[in-house]
């Protein structure tokens, strides 16, 4: 769920006709001063973070003049709260508050509709107030076809105990709040407090909007960088991972970091799950062994080998992990050898030195386990593959033993070298990369096994050399499924003539930064 900052949400509300305090966002004390000057009234400064209870953290301050606003902003910018370093504050006119209400919109999974909630009490501690004063809360199940009618909104406010001009203003605001939420595919929206000023005007004094991840594509104007449910801004590595996901529609790839800096002495591992339920079960198994997770990663929904490869490369960009644990539900419907090949390519390129336990249960798991067993024997690290009849607990136990055998050695991140491809190599584009074959090396090849290994059968021999059997355009559009079988075969059994370049934008630079410390 992509969260919007308060100032972004308020901008959408203002455009939707809801009255919000005058103000704007500042990234420096000087900007804060300039905004306060423009407003020309006492202001309030509010840190912009995805957290509630900001007042208690010192995240809401008042200033009577621009000079004060600048001083306060200087104190607030750079403040550390929970997972955040504050980098922006909202500077806006200070309201003369007479009373506070609450308005919210959530999804009701039982009735399968949005639920509009209004409370005639609001402000700090709303959850407790709601528990103690149920009569002050009213709810409306919204028909997504009809939206919220004025009369429905009036009844909603009336039932919470309000009347007169305030009721009319609030009802008007509620209909507009729903329209904004609907227009921007917000799966939740909240105004707390909703304020009545001494001048008898209703204002949205705060605003939390959460946009549906799945509908972010409809709203490029919102500039949402990572459409994921984070309670902090995404890390650099998470942004790199999200770019991979954005550019490849095949399967789902989710990557979340628990820590960016692994503390010395703690037993951290890289985690690579497949499917939500199986991943959770597998996480429990390694956590029960006393390990900590550097990251959570999930590749599911039938991703190609190339996507799993990229996920593995990203997981292995975390220095200090002691092992690699991959495990899903155990009985997956998808062909498991794609994941196996993706990991093989990544582990080979990294010359993996920490142990890996890979539980790839499901369709064709025998083939997946065979691939893991056959193509990694020359690595420094032990890699073991398991299937549906091996429990996550057993596999986590194996990882524990292998890490002990490896003396708990820490993963060292390698720089990413530019691929060495001869200029005259035979090459064609794939959906997300480029496949090259050094035909000079093919002369020494005995088996020509790459053609047989190719799963979609798009390679053929021409003058004893492998070439595309289909138009290059078709390969680029996805007929080459990036199954990686040809490269892995050629690398392990033959002349190392085939290389599939699968770029991960930003990862090279990221690793260089890590290596510089």
């Amino acid at each position, binding site marked *: 769920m992509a969260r919007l900052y308060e100032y972004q949400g308020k901008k959408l509300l203002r455009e939707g006709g809801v009255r919000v305090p005058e103000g704007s966002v500042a990234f420096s004390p000087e900007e804060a001063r300039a905004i306060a000057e423009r407003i020309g009234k006492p202001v309030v400064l509010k840190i912009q973070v995805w957290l509630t209870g900001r007042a208690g953290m010192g995240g809401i301050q008042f200033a009577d003049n621009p000079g004060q606003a600048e001083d306060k902003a200087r104190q607030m910018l750079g403040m550390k709260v929970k997972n955040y370093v504050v980098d922006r504050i909202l500077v806006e006119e200070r309201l003369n508050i007479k009373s506070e209400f609450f308005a919210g919109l959530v999804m009701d999974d039982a009735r399968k509709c949005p639920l509009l909630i209004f409370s005639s009490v609001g402000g700090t501690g709303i959850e407790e107030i709601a528990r103690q004063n149920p009569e002050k809360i009213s709810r409306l199940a919204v028909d997504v076809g009809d939206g919220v009618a004025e009369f429905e909104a009036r009844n909603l406010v009336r039932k919470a105990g309000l009347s007169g001009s305030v009721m009319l203003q609030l009802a008007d605001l509620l209909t507009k709040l729903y329209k904004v939420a609907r227009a921007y595919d917000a799966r*939740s929206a909240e105004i707390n407090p909703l304020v009545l000023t001494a001048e008898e005007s209703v204002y949205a004094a705060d605003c939390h909007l959460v946009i549906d991840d799945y509908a972010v*594509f409809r709203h490029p104007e919102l500039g949402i960088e990572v459409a994921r449910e984070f309670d902090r801004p995404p890390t650099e590595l998470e942004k790199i991972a999200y770019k991979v996901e954005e550019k490849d529609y095949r399967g789902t790839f989710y990557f979340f970091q628990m820590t960016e800096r692994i503390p010395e002495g703690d037993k951290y591992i890289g985690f690579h799950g497949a499917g939500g339920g199986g991943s*959770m*079960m597998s996480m429990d198994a390694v956590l029960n062994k006393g390990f900590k997770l550097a990251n959570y990663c999930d590749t599911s929904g039938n991703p190609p080998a190339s996507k799993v490869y990229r996920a593995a490369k990203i997981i292995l960009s975390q220095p200090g992990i002691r092992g690699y644990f991959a495990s899903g539900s155990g009985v*997956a419907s998808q062909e498991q050898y794609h994941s196996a090949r993706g990991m093989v390519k990544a582990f080979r390129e990294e010359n993996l030195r920490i142990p890996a336990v890979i539980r790839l249960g499901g*369709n064709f798991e025998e083939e997946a386990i065979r691939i893991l067993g056959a193509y990694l024997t020359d690595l420094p690290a032990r890699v073991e593959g398991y299937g549906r009849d091996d429990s996550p607990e057993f596999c986590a136990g194996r990882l524990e033993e292998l890490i002990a055998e490896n003396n708990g050695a820490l993963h060292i991140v390698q720089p990413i070298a530019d691929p060495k491809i001869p200029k005259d190599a035979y090459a064609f584009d794939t959906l997300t990369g480029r496949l090259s074959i050094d035909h000079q090396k093919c002369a020494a090849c005995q088996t020509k096994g790459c053609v047989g290994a190719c799963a979609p059968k798009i390679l053929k021999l021409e003058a004893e050399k492998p070439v595309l059997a289909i138009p290059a355009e078709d390969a680029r559009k996805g007929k080459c499924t990036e199954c990686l079988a040809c490269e892995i075969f050629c690398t392990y059994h033959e002349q190392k003539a085939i290389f599939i370049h699968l770029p991960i934008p930003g990862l090279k630079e990221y690793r260089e930064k890590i290596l510089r410390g």
Partner: protein
Amino acid sequence: MAILVDEKSRVIIQGITGREGMARAQLMKDYGTNVVAGVTPGRGGQDVYGIPVYDSVEESWEKQGPIDISVIFIPAALVKNAALEAMAAGVKLLVIVPDRVPIYDVLEIARVAKAKGARFVGPNTLGLLSPGKAVLGMIGGRAQRAREWFKPGAIGVSSRSGGMTSAISYYLTQAGLGQSSIIHVGGDAIVGLSHPEIMELFEQDEQTKVVAMFGEIGTTQEERVADLIEAHSFTKPLIAFIGGKAAKSGTRFSHAGAIVEGTRGSYETKVKRLRDVGAHVVDSIFDIPKKAKELLK
């Protein structure tokens, strides 16, 4: 008996000529599902594994007769239109496989379904399977595996995780326990048929003697199942596992959810509610077969 689908159900596949649609058409047909037609606008007249393709759901109905179920493999952004098309043509059960369908699209599908007396499984579902009879969606991946992994029997399986739907059913089979129907209700916050609706169907199904449910944190589905048991609307023995114990509760962003649901949705609440009404909550999915054997006695 079984729930929602058997070998006689007349099924179409929307998006049958796409990458996933084609692969799963083969699974369904090979397993024995009565797939009567496929639909891809603009591809009418072709066929996929001997299944005739039509330009619209209405056309497939005209040419092939009444359709009971449509299984949808369409890019997420276009799912709403496909679902509305199927319901407009008169189809009463949809299986919406794709992931990442926008939530308001799901709500609109739900609204129309309610008005037309139609139902849907998903979105973001692996589908459902009645062992030995029919499969809808992609459970099992290949017919041969599906036949090995799932056997007819007395256990109903309902799960919010696709992988765990197969895993629980497979481990039951390994223990010598067959299944009546196995269903992945879908992984999203809003789904068509959710756990409580599936329990009501299992209640009516004579073949089902015991139900295994894989729940997760979030939503009110498991609490509503507890409500059903309390109201004696669901009376069969229920074995439940709730995933997400280790998930950190984290910093909550929204008060509104808490006002509406209170503590509903949390791991502790779900487990307590289910235990209080007599459901058998297990700590590992590997305990399910043993528990099921006890309960069948």
